[in-house]
């Protein structure tokens, strides 16, 4: 499924909503709003960033919604409030783009586990279901093979996805969803795939500021809104240097704590 670009993208600002950063925003999630805003501004496209805290009404007319990661308790509270408000549901029906990170992805699915491991009903905006599995928490670098998203111009290659993951769930994509990519290093969804895409709703286990290391994913989300012609190239040399370095780190299994004797003596 694809959305058609806005008729006149310069007509009004692209509206980006950060949903409940007070509940879901433990891991630098605010970085994604900054990355998206700057990538629009640098291309001369106006952007309006709106922060919606828990308890405040959720607007249904924005272009892009960001749902961050968080702990088990706030995750349940955020689900309750979003279910009650229905603002995000209406926005998705109108074709809004959603990026949901980690706990955000879990609550957007059909079911997810709460702090006690009990299965809760999710928001049903992503066709997937998350269960708790009996394994140590997945904490470390996550690296995928080439990722793809479908747009009006066909499938866009997003390059390798790189990031950090920190979660205990296993997410099973349903028949009406696709994965973002296959996992090369790390855990991801838990079945060799990483991320879930249903229409214009994208979920990922790349936690926190996921878009900082993955500019092509950021641009693909924006392209859904402003169309491919507006996506002029940007200078991503800093990001490219970071990506190269992180590819090596993941492949060298920097996952395991690097224990230098000096550090152990210093800290303990």
């Amino acid at each position, binding site marked *: 499924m694809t959305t058609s670009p806005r008729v006149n993208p310069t007509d009004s600002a692209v509206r980006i909503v950060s949903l409940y950063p007070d509940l879901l925003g433990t891991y630098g999630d*605010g970085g994604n709003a900054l990355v998206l805003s700057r990538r629009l501004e640098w291309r001369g496209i106006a952007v309006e960033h709106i922060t919606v*805290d828990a308890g405040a009404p959720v607007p249904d007319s924005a272009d892009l919604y960001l749902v961050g990661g968080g702990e088990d308790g706030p995750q349940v509270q955020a689900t309750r409030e979003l279910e009650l408000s229905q603002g995000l549901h209406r926005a998705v029906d109108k074709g809004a783009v959603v990026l949901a990170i980690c706990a955000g992805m879990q609550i957007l699915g059909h079911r997810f586990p709460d702090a006690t491991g009990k299965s809760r009903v999710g928001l049903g905006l992503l066709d997937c279901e998350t269960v708790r599995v009996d394994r140590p928490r997945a*904490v470390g670098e996550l690296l995928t093979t080439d990722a793809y998203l479908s747009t009006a111009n066909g499938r866009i290659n997003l390059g390798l996805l790189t990031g950090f993951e*920190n979660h205990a769930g296993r997410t099973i994509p349903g028949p009406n969803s696709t994965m973002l990519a296959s996992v090369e290093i790390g855990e991801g969804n838990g079945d060799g795939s990483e991320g879930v895409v249903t229409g214009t709703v994208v979920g990922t286990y790349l936690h926190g500021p996921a878009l900082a290391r993955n500019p092509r994913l950021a641009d693909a989300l924006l392209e859904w809104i402003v169309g491919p012609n507006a996506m002029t190239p940007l200078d991503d040399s*800093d*990001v490219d240097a970071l990506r190269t370095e992180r590819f090596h780190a993941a492949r060298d299994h920097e996952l395991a704590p690097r224990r*230098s004797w000096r*550090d152990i003596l210093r800290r303990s």
Partner: protein
Amino acid sequence: MAAGRFVAWASRLVHFGTGSVIGGRVSLLIDPNLLAELTASREVAIVSATNGKTTTTKLLSTALGSHQPIVSNWLGANMTPGIVAALATSNATDTAVLEVDERWVDSVLRATNASTVVLLNLSRDQLDRTQEVRKLAEQWRDALIATPPRTVIANADDPLVTWAALVAPSVVWVATGQEWTADASGCPACSGRIDFVGSEWSCASCDLKRPSIDVTVDHGTISIAGQNFRSPLALPGRVNRVNAAFALAACSAMGANIEAAFGALDDVTEVAGRYRVADFNGTKIRLLLAKNPAGWHEALELLEGPSTPLIIAINARIADGHDPSWLWDVAYERVGDRFVIAIGERRHDLAVRFRYGNITHVVADNLDDAMNLVRQSPNFDPTVPVDVASNYTAFQDHLEQVGGVL
């Protein structure tokens, strides 16, 4: 008593040198109750927090030390083995001022029966490693119920700390004017929303609110029990005036003369290398430590000059936490027009953060290269120290480069 002395003597036998954690570990294997025995006949104060515990421990031990013998683990070995190692070298009755890791407050309080507990703040730190901050607040609260100290000195502007300290029989509340509140938007008592209005805060759903204040820090004046103390301290910044206020309040609770104590604080010019101004190949640098968003919030306020070049170093080793995502929770935009050089093992993460912050920056491989770039930069002024702000292991590396802990 004799047993205690014997244990202290025995522990010195296995002690590998001052501040030795290994010595402490070995001693604890021989006698797991060593901490209780080493503190049985002395007064103990403990200091804990996410940020500022090393500095406040140093200030409190200096202030108390003006008129009594003090033992302290102020070099930062702040779990039971490090504390035992520090105590083993002291007289059995010396007052102990102990920095305690946030996660070790319960066991250290239980073992030492500390009379005075100083609780500065709690915020996000090393999320891939430690527990969420709310759970830490709960542990502190349970610890204070299990082993009530005579007095708790607590931050009235940190809802997590306030909620933990409320169970103590006697609390001295310090108005810290803490600006970092991102980890306290959910009420620790009922998960309701905490509203911050002006200097006050309260929960929208239960009766948790800012307690009435005993100690204030206002424009360089610390007010405590009706007495005013005019800063400046030798240590820079608002955050250190707050740390000093906690130290003075603890002194007062421990029956010390706070006027003499305040006078002694001027002698503290650095804390385990933090704030040290040192020569680096002919150029003055100043070492700053900031490990997490709340720490950076304070550190960015201390920076030299509005256009002085700045070096920022980030590592992500085990002592730092492996995930530097928190860089995006820091308002680095506050560096303004300064030219920033990113170093450390995660310099590329910093560069990307700066790029999206529209901050003028370059990446260098190490401190030497960064300093060469500083000397060539148009706004370099050799009379002003160049700030080198680093997180934990990067800071230790730089400290070693300028001569280590004094």
